[in-house]
């Protein structure tokens, strides 16, 4: 049965008619046209589908869209403002923190969730925070460096 579900998507009030048991991933990609969030495993193991709900990283492939009802959803498309990259995005570019780029949106969203909770994480805390996100190309060391740098920038450091 379809229902009306409303949430704030990347800061914009959004209302859709959808089957509430559908996954948030499916709704984002297929109904709302936001394909930056990726499908990787369908069971929450890889993290390619990570988005923020009320600043909390969630695996959108396992979450029914009804869980987002009334909440603030942020996807990779919502990070850059007026063509300016978010400090995390810029740091990923500057550090070449990816190869094929497929896991990148999920990495960035997980890292953002981490930095929102803990603005000055140590290297070990970043490793722990990202450990459930998989990257097959092996860009890990660069991703860690990028998140460290983005954290510094977001705190207003140089």
């Amino acid at each position, binding site marked *: 049965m379809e229902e009306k579900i409303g949430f704030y998507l990347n800061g914009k009030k959004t209302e859709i008619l959808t089957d509430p048991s559908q996954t948030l991933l499916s709704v984002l990609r297929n109904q709302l046209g936001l394909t930056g969030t990726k499908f*990787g495993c369908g069971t929450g193991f890889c993290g390619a589908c990570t988005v923020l709900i009320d600043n909390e990283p969630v695996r959108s492939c396992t979450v029914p869209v009804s869980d987002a009802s009334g909440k603030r959803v942020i996807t990779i498309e919502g990070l850059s403002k007026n063509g300016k990259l978010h400090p995390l995005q810029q740091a990923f570019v500057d550090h070449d923190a990816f190869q094929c780029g497929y896991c990148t949106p999920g990495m960035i969203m997980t890292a953002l969730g981490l930095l929102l909770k803990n603005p000055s994480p140590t290297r070990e805390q970043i490793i722990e925070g990202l450990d459930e996100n998989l990257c097959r190309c092996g860009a890990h060391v660069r991703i860690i460096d990028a998140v460290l740098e983005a954290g510094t920038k977001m705190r207003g450091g140089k």
Partner: protein
Amino acid sequence: MKNTNIDNSKNTGSAGIKRRSFVKLFGGGILFIFNPFAGLDLFSSPAEQGRTLTKDYNAFLRIASDGTVTCYTGKIEMGQGIITSLPQMMADELDVPLNKIKMVMGDTDLCPYDAGTWGSLSTQVFGPAMRAAAAEAKAVLTEMASTRLKVPADRLQVKDGVVSDIKNPSVRVSYGQLAQGRKLEKYLDVKPQVEDYTKFVYTTKPLKRHDAVEKVTGKAKYAGDLRLPGMVFARILRPPSHGAKLESVDVSGAEQVKGTQVVRDGDFIAVLNENQERASEAIVKIKAEYSFNELKVNDKTLFDRMVGADSRSSVVRTSGDLEAGFRESDRIFESEFRDPYVAHAPIETHTALASYDGDKVTVWAATQTPFGLQDGIVRELGLPLEKVRVITPYVGGGFGGKNAFQQGIEAAKLAILSRKPVMVVWTREEEFFYDNFHPAGVIRVRSGIDKNGLIKLWDYNIYYSGTRGSETIYDVPHVRATSYSQNMNAVQIHPFSTGPWRAPNNNTNTFARESQIDIMASAAGIDPLEFRLRNLKDEKMIECLKAVADKFGYTPSKTPGGRGIGIACGHDANTWVAAIAEVRVDKSTGRVQVLRVACSQDMGLCVNPQGALLQMEGCITMGLGYALTEEIQFEGGVIKNKNFDTYEIPRFSWVPKIECVILDRKDKPPTGGGEPAIILIGALLANAIHDATGARMYQMPFTRKRVLEALKKV
């Protein structure tokens, strides 16, 4: 190596387009057409790996009237970075700004035939040819400018795409102006040459990726991100095991799921639905019964079965006399090394979108072989070649796994049957089930050393895993390498399809060779670096080892010395590579933590040092997986690994400190960079584990359980 999906002997179709008028396809401008493989004799031939390359003019550079230079290549971008390194080379040779160069990749209608993106060939073979063509194109353009400006060519200079008179720079014409109003085809005969690279502006400079902004903003389009009006999602009925045969099927349950269309062609049954999740809901409602005729083998019995099989044997290389080697040896060592099936497991599963207009089918696919897929569709669906177009968007990782293109054929077939645009996205379970795994294998080595620690005997036997990387590399007088492979009349050994996996076979062979070297060094009481240097004559290998020892700050020691330090070296894709690692082994749990890896590489001219570093780091990180955890578990035709919980790939917490050195070899042609470093990781960690604990690992991966078992034998 059995390779069910690639048969290049039949791949003449697309290559046969020959000298049609290319300008018609591309509109105006100047089109330079050349054969990138004409100078192949400069390099090792990919043909020895069973790959054929087309012999005709087939690569294009186009200069448009706005000065844009477009390179059309059948190669694809899957993270390896050629979208950046190829334009680098071209910008230098043509003397145009880098931002004027556009790449069109992997589109079978627009791009020249290419057998596939694999084997670390893009930069080492395609690159130099493209560079040579660009240099010739520059000469042609200068000639044209000379006529136009009425200035002798030798008085002209080129800078940033503008040709001008050295004596009077205001007399000038740009490439774009030369192309204006023209429709010109120029055929170039190129022979790549080794040149002085120091004059280049872009080549050898570390450059950031061109695809970066798209990839960090979610704008980069992968096959699964494309949408067409009226598009439906497909799920396909899959057998529970390889070798199972469909006996009966009832699709009525699926048909009751709202909006579902069931499509059937023999045993090929799929459900289509505009809603992706309803398609998934419908597919599980199909009731199917199967009969089973599986091989009675599993991941544990496989290895004995390989060694005991009635195999076809062939001597890969031989020198000296094994009997003499035996006599000259003071000590003989016999070992058996085992390597299981390993999955490619890219995070993007096999995905394709197909659209059929009643005449021509277009497929957007995650593939390393757009032309292979085109030929596959021609072969399987009976369409004429010109009625099949394959377009390759960004590919979310390949590693050899996306040389296989079954999903593209499935999408095309369903689009034709349903007359709707069809999206096929394999689930993770399908990805594991249909992967063309890295082949499992057994290596048996019998080797001997004399009293001085010199290797005198090397009797090397490969069972079912392939020969790439099986060179002895050490200076041994008496050598024989024998490969045992499938005997046509005997029972099938590999229960499912296998194929190239990043540095095919070399991971297995380097694991065996470098472990055996360490076993001998340890028994002789000689430091493993010293033992290698004593037995090497290969200057490149020696220099790589010295460079990495320097980087690591290596100090000699007999092993096991309790330090947890291991060494390995080898070569792949014409690149020489050596590494030293430090590990910590938890003797109570068997857990291996890699602390540091230093790695050195001689890859000839390094076109993009930044990109090459990324590839080295990627190889080292990805290699941790096959060395420590990755292993396909199976029972007959049933693949037990269905997702990342039972098939563990490297995580952040595993990653060591990585330090890389790329040797300065600007005077040598560039060689492969996408694969070499990964070959070392198995032996590197096995040798480090041995140094730490005295336990010798003979079977990959070195799971906690296997490490604990090996510790019991110390």
